[in-house]
């Protein structure tokens, strides 16, 4: 399972099972266009009335996130904090302050949903298999 597939599936599960977190996520991501680079993968997460996780477009993104699958799993497993990830160079986030704050709100809304929706654990298990195969 790719990072893009995992994120898409997890967001869909949160939308179905815990709508309040999804609405909060949509609200935070509205107007943002974030280019995500996870290892060899590149995809775009944007909000314009709905959440879109798709191909990199021609329009310049308003923020960039750069990390690896290993770093994502370390964050999800609590083995590394967001601050530590940035300090250790495992996570790069670039954008204006306002956009970074929105991105932080979106991340937290996603985590609130992920913690409540059991299906996300299954998605994470699939993602782990992909991560171990990739490494």
């Amino acid at each position, binding site marked *: 399972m790719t990072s893009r597939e995992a994120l898409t599936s997890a967001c869909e599960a949160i939308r179905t099972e815990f709508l*309040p*977190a999804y609405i*909060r996520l949509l609200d935070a991501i509205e107007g943002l266009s974030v280019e995500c680079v996870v290892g060899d993968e590149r995809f775009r997460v944007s909000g314009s009335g709905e959440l879109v996780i798709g191909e990199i477009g021609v329009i310049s993104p308003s923020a960039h996130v750069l990390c690896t699958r290993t770093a994502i799993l370390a*964050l*999800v*497993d*609590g*083995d590394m*904090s*967001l*601050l530590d990830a940035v300090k250790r160079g495992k996570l790069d986030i670039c954008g204006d302050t306002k956009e970074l704050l929105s991105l932080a709100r979106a*991340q*937290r809304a996603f*985590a*609130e949903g*992920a*913690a*409540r929706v*059991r299906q996300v*654990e299954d998605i994470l298990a699939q993602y782990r298999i992909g991560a171990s195969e990739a490494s």
Partner: protein
Amino acid sequence: MALEPVALSLLDRPHLPQDGELDPANFKEWWHFNLLDDAYGLDLIVNLSLSGDITRPAVGEANLIVLAHEPAHGWTGGVRRHDGLTARVETATFDIQLDMVKLRFHRDRYVLKAESERPDGISVDVELVPRTEPMVVWKNTPIGSGHINWLITPYLEADGTIRVADRQYRIAGARAYHDHNWGRWLWGDNFGWDWGFCSAAAEVEGAPMSLVYDRTVDRAGHRIMEHSLALWHGESLLKFFPRQQIRMQRKGLYRQHIRRIPGVAGLIDPASVATVPGRIDIEARDGDDWVDACYIPDAAIQIAIPREVGFGLVQLNETLGWLTLSGSVAGLQFAATRRSCFEFVG
């Protein structure tokens, strides 16, 4: 033991919602076991919980927490969540199977078997024989908008094997504790609690003295709903100090890093855990009977549960440490320092 094992088996049965009962979604129940092995310094926590309607798919949960703390390696283990329908639950006694885990009361003892499929996980194969009569607090104690009930067996003797990653422990005569809670409440409602025990804290006139402490409060800790200190001597309850006879004081803050499980909790609340006291002092007085206890934690982990009311997390802080105890109750005098466990919830 004076209480027939069959009676304990019945008392410890599940209290699942009945057909047609209102609000099965608020139903919660768990069986909790602590094992303190003084020989290895190994501490084990096993908790199996059921919540919601476990008779229908995707609406109830059956979750298992297995945690071990070793002096040289710290904490291992975590939380596994399952659809409630996957749990095989006997209704007339305690006998639950969940994935590779089987927990039950058989003849005169609890049998816990939990296989970990992960090489870095925890496998448990232990039997726990109750050495005290249980205490049952079955009066729907209010917590938030709901209520909770409690069965406590403060001292059991544990034998068997525990594997933590590649480390094998043979357990013989370890001190253990068991409780069973059930009721209806919402995580995130306005409540919290402090709870702790010390199994076989002291040997007094040839019999073990065990202790269980409990304090149920509002989330801020200002309003006390229940406060008690219970002591067992040998098999029997020796003394129950009610709220009017107890004073408790938290002092300082536990300063070491506290890991949160599941790890995703750190992405919801990245702040350091600052809700564990550095020390608590408990005083109980009733005429000539008195107890002084001081608990200092030296290990802590947080089980973070998403609030069911709004966003955010409820913090279940599990701690291990040393309880220094002295007192005189019913003419029995005691003084000891022993490994102990306290939980701080809010």
